[in-house]
């Protein structure tokens, strides 16, 4: 039997970027709000002091700021006919934990998605014809347009002080009701927090997991291609090209770089180029954006170098200052497919006895082709910079949960115009439970070739604006399907 807390106007589950945005927007309406966060409270001066924030072993390797797999994890498999097993050490992504959420380890690479990204199926079938898309690709329009989101992108970019120079180097410019939430505190005591409005703003997979555990929305069934919770799960198609330069002529001081200082081109993103001759859709920004030169992760050696011993050591010494190892050299889209989805694991449970989230995810030919084309293009740039050796590291299948590929996991509780193919409406409001709004990248019907935070935040402001302008005056469904 849980203890019951006094009722609040709003309860927010997860206090990262989107939970904080909603908290700020809704307190401006005078609402009484409580936010529940699983991890620790962190303060900048005590938790991120500049004299040990550089500790690569502690933060990057031992995952100090992240969720611990022994707290909870996910199961993973590539294909529906395999048995999913728990991820026991973070690899392909690193889920956040604590106040600030993923914003705590954010590189601040802040992009806007392209207008065509929001109407992707309409746009691509209009330009190339429906038969150009693979049959099992399940991309959808978002139900919200770039123009809807533009003022909210703007708001977020001003909030963050997003800056940079855009341009061209040469050439021309181109029915139910949620009553609140229950939670277990660190002492193991179960509490109930009643509220009129519930904001679900946890990390992608935890949003989906909480919806499934709460039995809100119909679980997705990939065989029948029916149901919504868990569908259109996506990640990012990442690859890189390391470049090795003559160390007598080049000195890059890689340790000076940081996560959002870099230079990218966008000519090959989304549908910015004609895909007709190439036989794939989607794209990437590509560029030299390298998070630091921390030496455990950033001591590249030319292909063919032994992995240890004297020859390895001298290659490390000779190349550290004169090589580039773009963190996300090719930052590509990952479109949605019928057999890439989230559901509850039939075997493995968390410490509360609830099924773990099961990820079924693999690369499809479209993304592999896209990545081969883009990696070759990026290699041409690295070569033209003067590299004597270029090491192309194509993304290949199967999807490998041990290899870091950004923490940009998306979908599973997607937005849309049709309740039979989306979990939430264009205002991020649950179709099934109108006093529940679901924030975050779990709303993305498929992923574009950009970092998600700008769009995640714009959607949060867009949703907050609908809650403030419409919902609070007349609580109920904002869209009648």
């Amino acid at each position, binding site marked *: 039997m849980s203890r019951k807390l006094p009722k609040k106007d709003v309860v927010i589950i997860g206090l990262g970027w989107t939970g904080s945005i909603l908290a700020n927007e809704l307190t401006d309406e005078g609402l009484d709000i409580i936010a529940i966060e699983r991890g620790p409270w962190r303060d900048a001066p005590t938790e991120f002091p500049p004299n040990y924030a550089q500790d690569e072993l502690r933060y990057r390797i031992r995952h100090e700021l992240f969720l611990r797999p022994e707290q909870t994890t996910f199961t993973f*498999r590539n294909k529906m006919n395999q048995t999913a097993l728990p991820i026991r050490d973070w690899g392909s992504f690193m889920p956040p934990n604590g106040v600030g959420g993923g914003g705590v380890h954010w590189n601040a690479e802040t992009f806007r998605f392209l207008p065509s990204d929001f109407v992707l199926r309409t746009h691509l079938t209009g330009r190339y014809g429906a038969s150009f898309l693979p049959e099992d690709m399940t991309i959808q329009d978002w139900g919200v347009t770039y123009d809807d989101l533009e003022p909210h992108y703007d708001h977020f970019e001003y909030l963050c002080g997003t800056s940079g120079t855009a341009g061209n180097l040469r050439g021309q410019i181109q029915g139910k009701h949620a009553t609140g939430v229950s939670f277990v505190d660190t002492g193991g005591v179960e509490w109930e927090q009643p509220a009129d409005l519930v904001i679900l703003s946890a990390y992608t997979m935890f949003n989906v997991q909480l919806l499934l555990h709460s039995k809100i929305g119909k679980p997705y069934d990939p065989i029948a291609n029916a149901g919504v919770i868990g569908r259109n799960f996506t990640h990012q198609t990442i690859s890189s090209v390391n470049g090795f330069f003559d160390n007598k002529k080049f000195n890059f001081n890689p340790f000076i770089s940081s996560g959002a*200082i870099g230079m990218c081109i966008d000519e090959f993103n989304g549908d910015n180029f004609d895909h007709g001759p190439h036989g794939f859709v989607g794209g990437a920004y590509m560029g030299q954006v390298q998070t630091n030169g921390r030496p455990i992760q950033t001591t590249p050696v030319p292909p063919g170098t032994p*992995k240890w011993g004297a020859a390895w050591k001298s290659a490390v010494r000779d190349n550290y200052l004169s090589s580039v190892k773009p963190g996300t050299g090719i930052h590509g889209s990952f479109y949605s497919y019928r057999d890439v989805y989230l559901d509850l694991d039939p075997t493995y449970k968390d410490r509360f006895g609830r099924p773990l989230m099961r990820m079924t995810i693999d690369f499809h030919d479209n993304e592999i082709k896209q990545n081969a084309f883009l990696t070759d293009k990026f290699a041409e740039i690295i070569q033209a910079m003067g590299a004597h050796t270029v090491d192309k590291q194509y993304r290949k299948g199967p999807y490998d949960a*041990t290899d870091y590929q950004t923490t940009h996991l998306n979908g599973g509780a997607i937005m849309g115009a049709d309740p039979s193919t989306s979990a939430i409406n264009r205002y991020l409001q649950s179709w099934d439970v109108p006093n529940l709004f679901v924030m975050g990248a779990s709303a993305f019907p498929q992923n574009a070739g950009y970092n998600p935070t700008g769009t995640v935040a714009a959607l949060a402001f867009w949703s907050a604006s609908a809650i403030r302008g419409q919902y609070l005056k007349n609580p109920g469904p904002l869209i009648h399907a």
Partner: protein
Amino acid sequence: MPGTKQQGWQSANGPAATYREALAALDKYCQSKYQGKRLPDLSDPEKDELLKGLEDEKIKLEGVDGKSFFELVIKDVQMGFFADPLYGGNRDMVAWKMIGYPGARYNYLDWVDRHNERFPLPPVSITGRADWSPKT
């Protein structure tokens, strides 16, 4: 169950138990191959030969996957070599000096626009400088 390569580490053993089992198997192999000599007693060329054999899967250890163990060791040794000396490796920042990494410095604001110039300052660790180490 073991799972696929893509599913990652699934052993019931943690790192310590993995090391203990593999080192015992390696010791046993050494004694049979090198006339009763134990691993630390091997000459440097013999040690290299042993490591190469594990890497190339030419050496089979009893009950242990030699290649996986080799990869774990390489990863951990290089991690210790490049991590802050706080953790006991990289003594006097020998690895950082070798590559030209300045360590746990506050920031490089004055250096962002100084392209193609070698950063002149020696590395610092979270716990201090190399010349603070006691001379033994």
